[in-house]
């Protein structure tokens, strides 16, 4: 988890630098910081506590349904399309509010 956390933070920094460097070419750079999702990568990081962690997080999300892969995909589409034209250099959190309680 320590490694995961530091990687997340360094990614945020990288996104800012890339966004600044490429802005003149109309390239936008953003990162999506998603809440826990039940993927292979997540399992690899969390290990045997995955179920418990997912369940705990789910109860803290809006509506209590937990974050779905589709939520993240729709968000990615949103910030890629002209609706997100002025979004750049941002690390955007989508976690259903779970991190508020963390």
């Amino acid at each position: 988890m320590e490694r995961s956390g530091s990687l997340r933070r360094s990614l945020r920094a990288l996104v800012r630098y890339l966004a600044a460097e490429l802005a003149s070419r109309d390239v936008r750079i953003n990162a999506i910081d998603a809440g826990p999702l039940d993927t292979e990568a997540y399992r690899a990081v969390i290990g045997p506590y995955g179920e418990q962690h997912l369940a705990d997080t789910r109860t803290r999300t809006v509506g209590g349904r937990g974050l779905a892969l589709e939520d993240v995909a729709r968000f990615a589409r949103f910030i890629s399309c002209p609706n997100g034209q002025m979004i750049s250099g941002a690390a955007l959190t989508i976690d259903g509010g779970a991190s508020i309680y963390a």
Partner: protein
Amino acid sequence: MLAPTSWMARADSVQSCTAAGGDRAAWIKLSALAVKTCRWCVHRLATTDNQQGEIMAVFVAGGSKGIGRAIALELAGPDVDVVVGYRRDDAAAESLAAELSSGPPTGSTKQWTNWSMRSTYLTGRLDRTLRPFRSRHVCLDQVRSRAAGAQVGEDPPGDRGQRDLAALPRPRRLAAVGRRVEHLLSDQSGQPRGPSGIWSARDL
């Protein structure tokens, strides 16, 4: 929100980038350093002149499973070619390719009615041009330099994250134009590659 087809067809940022870059294609969105916790990224590779009927190509690294897979499914449409990069799981990639090209999965709420077979979905046969993208640990410089074909055809030993970035060749661009993918940028001497660098999507 607009339907994906309409916003991608317009792709305003592509045009500006085209003008700046001097060729018809450019990296539009290089959205992530694909590290372990965040290993998918969406590269909107290129489009042509953004008029009606143009096709956008989107590259999703680490797209065979998990979040990348969801994004590939979300972005795919009649005007959007999705190219999926993956490293290990051939079965998952083939499964995604089948799903993308055959219509909605059972129970899906996504409207596929007008999403014809125009889109080309590529996975599995990325060995040639897009092989450089087949990395679980991809970072920007590596993607771009390897896309130039420096070591196409072989997988480097070990974790690419450990490779010395400074030793890699200068970045060049790989772009998808319509349904074709071509090496647009130069070789080591700075000369653009010719038409021989163009592959059809089928060749991938």
